[in-house]
């Protein structure tokens, strides 16, 4: 039997704190019960100057400090950041939540079974929801609380704060999807996802350390250029022109996306990743909105044509900066409301989290695409024929929109109405499992992190999808996995591709609005292209 890894082991300089061993991973249902059907585990290859002592993958890739002094300086910075997390000036945004979570965990481990990463890894101790929380809790009680050197150990157990601890914590804060499924099960209300969130904030806001895809290539690029895809306003307009042409040809309708229309009722904000990777999604929105006669517009202001807001996962200021600019664009156009496209984290950032950042006339009403589309589907303005969607459909619930916003039924009412073979995954709704791409993972693929996502964080979702379609997993029967969220789609694309799920099981993924257009009788049949997977 393997020796159980202890919380305090995180401080002991060893080559690896844990091994990510495919032999431990939770078995999958057919056809992935056979080893030959599984994708290979890609081993980590990394140079010696990068910190990689947590496990067998890397998300952040922190350079190793060159001297002892450098190490000490980083540890000192960590401590100063930790102090700031507990001051109201620096962290009014989450102070109350974090303090309660630090003070009241009963260490009962009820949350462990809720976590898909912990389960899929074969219950790897380091991925246990409370493991990273416990590390931080012990540091907080030992180094921040009065008399902590004695009482901290007595109350919570021992820990040493050194560079090994900090370096591993940086990586460990990127082994959690911040899906908050664990928090839902805690009998006290303690939130391990919040700990992940606050740790990432400390690293970003104090030490300037974050996953490159979220910061440099994410929120910074978005604030500088307009979009994390790198599209500036000219390029995005060009791309939408192509999409309009394509949609017009495909549907037989004349589609022209309106830009910067002052006084429009609705400012629609897509995740710009859709425009690049899944153009049929913004295209389908344009089709539905035009057919229903909605007064709408997109904005070409930086960054209002990209709804992403990666700050949600690692940096309060980056979150606020993007959300404020989104609101400013809406205010400038004088729209009645913002509708956020099919993207869970964009929706939650703008509607919920930024709700307590936007004041005065920046507080423009904001709505989710789910409610907005539901109204259009049942308004009678669209002619719909559900028999066009006569294939098995299941629904993935994006955590941000469902568990964390309570938008559960609108998308289901649409699917029940338009898809005769709709079936639920188990569990679903607010008890769903994360796709494994949450908290930014879907766009993070450095080193072998994508392999880790495919094998570990995405494993439970794959199991759920297979179970939902288990009545007919033959590749001849085309099946549709509906994921009304751009990031989830990114993750599902990677999993389905890695497991060759189209060839082996006939599973395609896509958004919600595509199913609506696929059922529109004013549109040429066959909007959903099964071949493109």
């Amino acid at each position, binding site marked *: 039997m393997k020796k*159980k890894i202890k919380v305090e082991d995180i401080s002991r300089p060893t080559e690896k704190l844990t091994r990510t061993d495919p032999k431990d991973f939770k078995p999958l249902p057919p056809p992935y019960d056979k080893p030959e059907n599984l994708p290979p585990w890609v081993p980590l290859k990394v140079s010696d100057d990068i910190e990689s002592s947590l496990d067998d993958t890397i998300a952040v890739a922190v350079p190793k400090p060159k001297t002892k002094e450098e190490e000490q300086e980083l540890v000192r*910075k960590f401590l100063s950041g930790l102090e700031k997390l507990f001051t109201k000036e620096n962290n009014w945004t989450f102070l109350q939540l974090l303090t309660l979570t630090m003070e009241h965990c009963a260490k009962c481990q009820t949350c462990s079974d809720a976590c898909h990463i912990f389960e899929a890894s074969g219950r790897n101790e380091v991925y246990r929801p409370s493991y990273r929380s416990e590390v931080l809790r012990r540091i907080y009680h030992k180094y921040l609380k009065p008399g902590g050197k004695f009482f901290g150990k007595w109350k919570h157990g021992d820990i040493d704060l050194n560079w090994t601890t900090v370096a591993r914590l940086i990586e460990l804060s990127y082994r959690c999807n911040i899906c908050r499924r664990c928090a839902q099960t805690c009998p006290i209300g303690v939130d391990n996802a919040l700990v992940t969130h606050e740790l990432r904030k400390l690293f970003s806001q104090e030490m300037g350390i974050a996953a490159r895809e979220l910061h440099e290539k994410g929120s910074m690029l978005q604030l500088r250029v307009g979009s994390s895809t790198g599209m500036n306003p000219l390029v995005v307009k060009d791309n939408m022109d192509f999409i309009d042409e394509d949609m017009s040809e495909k549907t037989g309708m004349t589609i022209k996306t309106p830009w910067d229309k002052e006084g429009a009722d609705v400012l629609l904000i897509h995740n710009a990743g859709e425009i690049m990777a899944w153009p049929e999604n913004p295209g389908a929105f344009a089709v539905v909105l035009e057919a229903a006669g909605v007064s709408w517009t997109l904005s070409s202001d930086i960054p209002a044509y990209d709804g992403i807001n990666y700050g949600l996962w690692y940096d309060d200021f980056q979150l606020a*900066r993007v959300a404020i600019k989104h609101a400013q664009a809406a205010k400038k156009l004088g729209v009645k409301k913002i509708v956020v496209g099919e993207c869970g984290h964009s929706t939650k950032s703008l509607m919920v989290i930024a709700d307590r950042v936007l004041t005065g006339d920046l*507080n423009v009403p904001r709505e989710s695409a789910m409610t907005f589309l539901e109204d259009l589907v049942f308004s009678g303005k669209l002619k719909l024929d559900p028999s066009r969607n006569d294939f098995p459909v299941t629904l993935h619930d994006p955590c941000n929109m469902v568990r964390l916003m309570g938008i559960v039924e609108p998308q289901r009412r649409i699917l029940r109405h338009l898809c005769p073979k709709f079936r639920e995954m188990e569990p679903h709704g607010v008890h769903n499992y994360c796709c494994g791409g949450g908290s930014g993972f879907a766009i993070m693929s450095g080193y072998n992190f994508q392999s880790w996502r495919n094998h570990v964080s995405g494993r439970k979702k794959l199991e759920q999808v297979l179970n939902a379609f288990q009545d007919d997993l033959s590749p001849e029967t085309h099946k549709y996995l509906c994921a009304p969220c751009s990031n989830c789609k990114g993750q599902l694309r990677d999993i389905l591709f890695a497991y060759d799920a189209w060839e082996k099981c006939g599973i395609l993924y896509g958004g919600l609005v595509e199913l609506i257009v696929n059922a529109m009788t004013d549109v040429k049949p066959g909007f959903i292209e099964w071949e493109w997977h």
Partner: protein
Amino acid sequence: MSSALLHVVTYAAFIVFVVAVAVRIYKIQSMPVHLRWDLYPVAHEGKRSHYGGSYFEELDWWKKPREFSWIGELRGMLPEMLFIKALWENNRPLWYRSFPFHFGLYILIGWVGLLVVGAIAQIAGIPVEAGTGSIVGVAIHYLTVLAGAFGLILATIGAALLLHRRLTDPEVEGYTSPAHIFNLAAFLGALLVGFLTYILVDPTFALARGYVQSLIVFNVSAPVGSSAVALEFLLFSLLLAYVPLTHMSHFFTKYFFYHKIRWDDEPNFRGSRLEKEITEAIGYPVTWAAPHLKADGKKNWADIATEEVDK
């Protein structure tokens, strides 16, 4: 231990308890407004709460009156407080241990309440015994015996089972600190003393009631009547003072976890009280050191959030 000293310890414990709870509540309440961090289901959502829906499911939700169901809140909170529903649903083996402990303690709180009521009745001249002329006195007597016996038995069994789990379950191994063991052992010890005192010395709780009566009338020199009862009250007093100083204060902080965090879905409207609080918070000066924030302790939160990033 002299009777007077025991009285002083009990008074002091009561004061520590009240002050510690008040300080904790004050600290939590005086923290600034925070960003929303809802977690569904939210119990006050009325007709949508059973599946976890929210007002965001409504078209133009900001134009609609917000449904806030107090009955829903109670329906969400009571089973959680009384029966630890989350544990029943998510960790049944632990529930079998935790529920008797917690429920036993609730009954014991009721028992203390009944001792106080009985003591007041006695002060008012109503005898509290079986077979007296007063129905009230008889009722208080039997209820006290029932609550005391059940409470002590349930809580003692629960404490023993929880301690057993802490010491043997590999799932919590490595997450158990010396304080955990001490806390459970302290409860088990005090409860066992209480139980044995009940069985062997004070089966009607008349002595316990007498002690409570002497506390109420500040008769600190009144003899306790039995050193077992004195020990029982000494241990209970120490626990009373100790609990709110530890993570076990979750017995009341749980309220904040639910009401101030998971279920705090209050939207921010222009001109609202909430908006005022937010305006105050974004005015705080910030000292975060990362280069992309350039916080210098003079710029406030809003300055940094509205600053252009370096091109």
